[in-house]
């Protein structure tokens, strides 16, 4: 049947496409990528959101590969990272932060379980870099340099690699098989690791072996001491020594141990002492619990295990079998002031956990190396005042001394070294504007509480060095990953595509996101308002 | 052209009577036209129906103003409506009643009218007897056939069967036949029936 369409009364389908309603627009939506708070705060510069994205769909290998673009030690980080990302997570304002750290550990463990290896570099650059120290900074630098095709040699004074991860973090937080496996995976990329090799004159070694650049990552392994009047019989030691000794033979601390300090190391020692059989493991700290530098969850775990706390106290004297402490009171400004009130406490040993300094020998052999106090001063891309010498980790001035920060230093330094060796200066990519909570339309996210990680029973926690916090199973990990809001970056929820009254959003296909059809977009802003993750911005039309 | 006007009340089959009359004429090859007095059809209200019969096509659409025959189905109308208006001189008058003309008060009025043209029959009673209900139309048409000779009984029977079916048709035919016989008997006696 042939249709004879009456003039004007009957129209052909789709003819309205000739009417370009885009001309109505006074402002236009544009797709943007914003920096999610997790990524922004990750000292290792992980693209957390991206690896969560892969984990959401159960593609754990892709997630792990995304994760290890920035951090080669996920199984370690999934255990020891203090996860500032979770503190910044926008979901925290909705219900609870996404358990990023738990998912990271799951991925790290999954990689070990599945035996996923790092890819070897596609091509060798012919350049060689000397890395001093096999702590997190050194390993990270070595890993990233190797990925770029450079030859890497790590020198380590100790008999095993890992630095503070091995000699500062107790096994119940980081099982050594995990550490060993993740170190080995880096070595397997073709990184040379020389153990039991102490280097004092690094420039000489560089010259002798013809390294193109040097990265220093020797950490801060010298314990800070404080003057405490003490009798000869008193047993005063430091946290670094205790934690180092534990790796080789159990140190003798006695039945009653007092730890002096309020940081994470103090907690580590107190909990270690408990596991070594101490009846009493008491932390003495000058200020209150909320002022403690130690993370609250660690304090909580320590308390659960029977560690005691003496807040607002300083040790004024140590003798055989006991110590004297003075009660403190906080002044108006929150500083502790002595009260003149004293107390005696039984103590077989006192462990000072007052912080660490950088060993100076190596530094003294580098002429012109600029220091700040005991630490090395670097520029924004981790180069010291000496050209071609880069540094990272705990030895570098400024910033927190954590494993995660060190890994970040190693990565940044590796990029800077790579550029430097090509005669360039590393320019980090400009960061996107932040994806703040206000930019989200959280209505779209399903209600979902955070997963609670399994915890070892208390008896075993008090008597063994078994790992305290368990991992997530696959279901939990996927669930947790799916709690991610994908702040600031399109996760292809199709909302913009769906809510456009003018069908002016083009769906480009899975993984390819969307595009605006500005021929028809009237600029109503519905897509912007209804984008759950704040990945659409509004720009004024230039008219 | 022969024109008939039927008076009655709604529900008495006045219109049907006119229609059956027209069908009976049609069956005999005549042109005929039957139509009602176009009222809103309410039970009990006075109604009229008309029928024209002719040998040629009937084009006329006016109501029957000058009937050649009147059929009065309900004598109760005699004193309410001017039933005889326009009746042709020597026109036929067929009244359904158990009473005589005198009893109906028409004796003086119809004194000048040819007596053979006037007939009163108890059509409702005949209908009650044969049909079981006092619907006098078929019986009156039987009487009309006998009185005027304008339609034949067999055509009337066919017309009744056209409008009714089965047992009801046969009962109405019986009533028509009874009335036909009664009128024929009476008119042969040359007395007002």
């Amino acid at each position, binding site marked *: 049947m042939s249709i004879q369409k*009456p003039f*004007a*009364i*009957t129209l052909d389908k789709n003819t309205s496409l000739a009417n370009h309603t885009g001309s109505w627009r006074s402002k236009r939506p544009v797709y943007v990528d914003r920096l999610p708070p997790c990524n922004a705060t990750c000292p290792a510069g992980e693209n957390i959101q991206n690896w969560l994205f892969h984990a959401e769909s159960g593609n754990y290998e892709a997630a792990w590969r995304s994760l290890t673009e920035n951090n080669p030690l996920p199984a370690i980080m999934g255990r020891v990272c203090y996860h500032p990302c979770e503190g910044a997570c926008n979901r925290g304002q909705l219900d609870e932060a996404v358990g990023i750290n738990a998912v990271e550990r799951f991925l790290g463990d999954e990689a070990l379980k599945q035996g996923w290896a790092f890819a070897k570099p596609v091509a060798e650059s012919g350049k060689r870099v000397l890395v001093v120290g096999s702590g997190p900074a050194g390993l990270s630098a070595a890993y990233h340099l190797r990925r770029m095709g450079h030859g890497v040699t790590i020198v380590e004074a100790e008999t095993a690699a890992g630095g503070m991860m091995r000699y500062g973090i107790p096994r119940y937080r980081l099982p050594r098989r995990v550490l060993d496996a993740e170190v080995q995976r880096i070595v397997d990329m073709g990184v040379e690791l020389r153990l039991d090799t102490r280097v004092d004159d690094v420039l000489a070694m560089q010259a002798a072996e013809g390294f193109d650049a040097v990265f220093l990552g020797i950490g801060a392994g010298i314990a800070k001491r404080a003057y405490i009047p003490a009798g000869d019989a008193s047993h005063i030691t430091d946290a670094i020594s205790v934690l180092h000794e534990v790796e080789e033979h159990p140190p003798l601390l006695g039945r009653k141990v007092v730890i002096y300090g309020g940081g994470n190391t103090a907690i580590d020692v107190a909990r270690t002492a408990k596991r070594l059989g101490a009846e009493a493991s008491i932390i003495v700290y000058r200020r209150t619990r909320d002022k403690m530098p130690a993370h609250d969850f660690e304090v909580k775990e320590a308390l659960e295990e029977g560690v005691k706390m003496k807040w607002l106290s300083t040790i004024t004297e140590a003798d055989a079998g006991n110590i004297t402490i003075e009660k403190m009171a906080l002044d108006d400004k929150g500083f502790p002031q002595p009260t003149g009130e004293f107390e005696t406490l039984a103590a077989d040993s006192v462990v000072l956990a007052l912080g660490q300094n950088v060993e100076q020998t190596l530094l003294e052999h580098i002429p012109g190396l600029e220091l700040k106090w005991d630490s090395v001063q670097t520029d924004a891309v981790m180069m010291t005042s000496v050209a071609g010498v880069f540094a990272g980790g705990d030895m570098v001035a400024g910033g927190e001394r954590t494993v995660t920060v060190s890994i970040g230093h190693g990565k940044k330094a590796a990029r800077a070294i790579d550029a430097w060796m090509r005669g360039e200066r590393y320019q980090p990519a400009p960061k996107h504007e932040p994806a703040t909570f206000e930019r989200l339309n959280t209505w779209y996210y399903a209600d979902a509480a955070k997963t609670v990680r399994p915890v070892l029973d208390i008896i075993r926690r008090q008597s063994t060095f078994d790992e305290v916090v368990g991992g997530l199973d696959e279901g939990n990990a996927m669930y947790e990953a799916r709690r991610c809001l994908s702040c600031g970056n399109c996760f292809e929820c199709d909302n913009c595509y769906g809510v456009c009254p003018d069908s002016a959003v083009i769906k480009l296909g899975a993984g390819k996101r969307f595009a605006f059809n500005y021929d028809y977009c009237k600029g109503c802003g519905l897509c912007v308002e209804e984008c759950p993750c704040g990945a659409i911005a509004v720009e004024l039309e230039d008219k | 052209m022969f024109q008939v006007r039927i008076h009655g009340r709604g529900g008495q089959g006045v219109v049907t009577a006119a229609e059956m009359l027209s069908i009976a*004429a049609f069956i005999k090859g005549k042109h005929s036209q*039957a139509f009602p007095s*176009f009222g809103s059809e309410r039970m009990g*209200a006075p109604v009229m129906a008309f029928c024209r019969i002719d040998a040629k096509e009937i084009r006329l659409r006016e109501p029957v103003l000058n009937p050649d025959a009147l059929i009065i189905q309900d004598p109760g109308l005699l004193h309410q409506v001017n039933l005889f*208006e326009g009746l042709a001189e020597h026109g036929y008058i067929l009244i359904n009643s158990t009473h005589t003309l005198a009893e109906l008060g028409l004796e003086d009025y119809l004194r000048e009218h040819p007596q053979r043209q006037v007939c009163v029959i108890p059509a409702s009673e005949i209908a009650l007897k044969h049909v079981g209900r006092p619907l006098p139309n078929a019986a009156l048409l039987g009487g009309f056939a006998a009185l005027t000779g304008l339609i034949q009984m067999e055509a009337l029977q066919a017309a009744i069967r*056209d409008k009714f079916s089965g047992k009801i048709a046969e009962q109405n035919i019986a009533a028509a036949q009874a009335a036909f016989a009664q009128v024929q008997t009476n008119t042969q006696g040359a007395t007002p029936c």
Partner: protein
Amino acid sequence: MLKQIEGSQAVAEAIGLCRPEVICAYPITPQTHIVENLGQMVDKGQIDPCEYINVESEFAAMSVAIGASAAGARAYTATASQGLLFMAEAVYNASGLGLPIVMTIGNRAIGAPINIWNDHQDSLSMRDAGWIQLYAETNQEAVDLHIQAFRLAEELSVPVMVCVDGFILTHAYERVDIPEQAQVDAYLPPFSPRQMLDPANPVTIGAMVGPEAFMEVRYLAHYQQMQALGLIPELAEEFQQQFGRDSGGLVKPYRSADADTIVVALGSVNGTIKDVVDEMREQGVSIGSLSICTYRPFPRKAVRSALQHAKRIVVVEKSLAVGIGGIVATDVQMAVAGLHKPVHTVIAGLGGRPITRDSLRKLFHKADQGHLAHLQFLDLKHALVHEEIARMEGQRHSGPSAENILRGMGTIASQIR
């Protein structure tokens, strides 16, 4: 087949022979018998396939027909009077969309005062609605016009109204020759719509058209309807060849070729007029008549040609354009424009007032003698209206005229005339 049947039944049988696919039924006197009969025919399977839909109003009846027709079904409905006015919006819409719906109008007056009897005010109120309007003179013609109407509507994609006088025709038992199905099938092919709602070929029907094209759309509607002036005589001619009857066409002159006075009318009253014409011709009066069968499109040339030799024209119409007079007469006047002939408007038969031979005879004699007024109302009860006018002038705002008139007449339940 010759039958002695009621007009409504005959029309219903004719519709049935046309194989309508969707019938919309809503009761209104005097068309009700038509849709009642059709309902029974559908129930008995005599029209099959067919959807018979009892709608909730005339507006819905035409709307359902619009939907059905746009979807490619042959659609039919019937109405009258208030019903036609209630569907008026849809009546215009059906023609605007070019949907070949056929509708029977059982012509009836329009209130207030409410009146169920015959005149032409209803269909004439829709004369500009874009429908073709055909007026039946007899029930035979009503039957034949419906068969032609479907063919006409579908060939032009224009809806057609067949106007049949309420009661006078719809309720009259008379002789009608009902054609055989095969004859009708040969004359009326299956509906092949000009356009259709079809998922295989989706189109948008019923667009909004602005000042830039509306004039053109309306012009084309006019042009399309004017095509009927050529097609209607052809279809009537073809009908005559196949059915042996002269039915339909544009106009039907009767003894008018040499007549000084020609009476023009629509519909069944032409029968009575012809009887009077015959009577007066026998008396030597030079009179004839012209029945307008196709009123829309108005066959101006045919009317002019039929009237050009007359000395005077008397339009007897069952309608009143309050404030000016005749409706049909106005069109007739246009047809004879420039011929300088008096066109007399006679308003007659409003609300079922019988148009009698007596009255027509007097009227036509008066016309023949040249004494007819330009506008007059046949059988108007002058004394009554004069009395009412006088009373109205005496005291204004005195209530509805209709009630006062009835009071003045004394309430008479059933009058012969």
